[in-house]
């Protein structure tokens, strides 16, 4: 069969799956809201009460958009990191970017007890800024290293060490902090799609789309890079420059998502493998859009389950996606042993 036709069919199938999951997602939640009301709100046809509109917008739609954008951003990040490091175990977090974000948040959340009266609440905006500053700081460090170092493995080692150091610093801060703050920090690390407001989720959309579109333009170079760095240079590529572009792009994506939703694990590692398995290719022109769609669908699955499995509230999304995803990935790896990148 013609290859582009088979790609179109596969794209069509995963897009249909994504739409179905999106509809299912807006229907799940603590209150029962009929689908007709949600469509009514979106298309402005029906006359709903202001409170009701608020619930639909701030809870259902905000969650839906956040889940899709975060899933897409993390999956593309993971794909690119696996390519740049040419390592199937790489993910958006290997550079320690999200640990940087965690440190920023830890300083604010855990440190607030030291500087602020205990009754003061840390605002969402403060958390956002702290996460942004933290991830930018780690990015600067990684970029400084990658401009000097030629060997990609050294960058990987630096990334892992930075993650370790940052995690330890956070541990020390937890040790000296009070219970309330430790709990609110730990809850943040479990990840959440529910704390993002509708307006914030709308901000995430263009950030994700623009960064992914820019990275898409590097697909040809990424495809060549898969064949080896020495070979890529012989094909006229500037590897250091490509790494910088990918690192900045990935940091923007993971930094933004981590700031809003906490460190969502596993998606960035798993979804690229699912995309390669479904499309049976290493071609980034195919895999980048595929990872975006599948990543959005994957996180929607996790979100739906985290709302459905426990009737009294919402399960931590990180735990749900790991429990849901790990067996699936193990199965794919077993089926696909010979081709991993």
């Amino acid at each position, binding site marked *: 069969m013609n290859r582009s036709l088979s790609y179109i069919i596969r794209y069509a199938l995963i897009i249909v799956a994504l739409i179905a999951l999106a509809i299912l997602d807006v229907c799940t939640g603590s209150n029962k809201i009929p689908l007709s009301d949600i469509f009514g709100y979106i298309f402005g046809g029906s006359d709903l009460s202001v409170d009701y509109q608020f619930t639909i917008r701030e809870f259902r739609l905000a969650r839906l958009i956040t889940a899709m954008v975060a899933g897409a951003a993390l999956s593309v990040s993971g794909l690119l990191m696996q390519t740049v490091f040419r390592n199937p175990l790489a993910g958006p977090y290997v550079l320690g970017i999200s640990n940087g974000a965690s440190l920023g948040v830890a300083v604010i959340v855990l440190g607030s007890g030291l500087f602020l009266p205990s009754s003061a609440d840390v605002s969402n905006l403060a958390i956002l800024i702290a996460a942004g500053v933290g991830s930018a700081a780690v990015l600067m460090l990684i970029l400084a290293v990658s401009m000097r170092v030629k060997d990609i493995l050294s960058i990987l080692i630096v990334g892992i060490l930075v993650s370790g150091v940052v995690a330890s610093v956070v541990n020390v801060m937890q040790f000296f902090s009070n219970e309330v703050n430790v709990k609110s920090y730990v809850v943040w690390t479990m990840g959440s799609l529910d704390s993002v407001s509708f307006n914030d989720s709308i901000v995430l959309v263009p950030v994700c789309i623009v960064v992914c579109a820019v990275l898409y333009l590097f*697909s040809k170079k990424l495809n060549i890079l898969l064949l*080896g760095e020495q070979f890529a240079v*012989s094909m006229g590529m500037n590897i250091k420059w490509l790494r910088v572009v990918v690192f900045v792009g990935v940091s923007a994506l993971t930094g933004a998502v981590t700031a809003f939703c906490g460190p969502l694990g596993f998606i960035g590692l798993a979804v690229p493998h699912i995309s390669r398995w479904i499309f049976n290719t290493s071609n980034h022109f195919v895999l980048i859009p595929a990872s975006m769609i599948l990543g959005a669908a994957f996180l929607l699955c996790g979100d739906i389950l985290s709302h459905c499995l426990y009737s009294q509230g919402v399960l931590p999304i990180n735990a749900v996606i790991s429990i849901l995803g790990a067996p699936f990935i193990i199965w794919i790896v077993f089926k696909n042993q010979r081709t991993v990148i």
Partner: protein
Amino acid sequence: MGEVVLNIEGLVFGHKRPLVSQAVDLSANAGDFICLVGRNGTGKTTMLNTLIGVKKPLGGQISICGVPLGKISAREKSRFISFVPSKVEAVLNMRIRDLIAVGRSPYTNIFDRRTKADNAIIEDFIQKFGLSDIADSMIAEISDGERQKAMICRAMVQQTPVILLDEPTAFLDFFAKRKLLSDLKKIASEENRCIIFSCHDLEIAAKYCSHIWLLDDRKLESVTVDEFLNGGYLSKYQ
């Protein structure tokens, strides 16, 4: 004898310190099949890396078809010289035809759109190399020898006057080595390309190559196969 395609003038290569004590002046013609010989640590890999542009030369210049490589962009350079690494990653989810098509990437746009002419060149060389049967197989499904052949086919598709191979025989069995080198020799003369390869299998290499670039005693010089076999190099290190 073809025309001169590769001209190396006053070249000094090395990491921070030069690996050669005197500057290298060499030239090679279209149709030449040259074996780069040197013991471990003499700088063969550095020499290859300098030619493909992974390393900047410490001095001197390399020109191909009269164009100095230092004066043109990296992308343009990939239209003059192509490189075949000693091993291709087998883990890629990629078809042989797509691997070969990578050879056209120095000519395609940012979206890697190939023209009809590009595709015709690709199909033409797939035929010439007898790869039609496996062109739709995945890289992981074929043998090391076939992968090597596909990478050489990829270099042909790139249509560069000079082709460099880093130890192409390293992962092949005895018979596959001989077959590969005789095929390469045929390609060099029939397609009128200058092919340079590094190799540790001196006895096999000497049988097929047109001459030898010998890297020894911090010098790189071109010798004929006869001079090489009788010049005392082989007995020197016994």
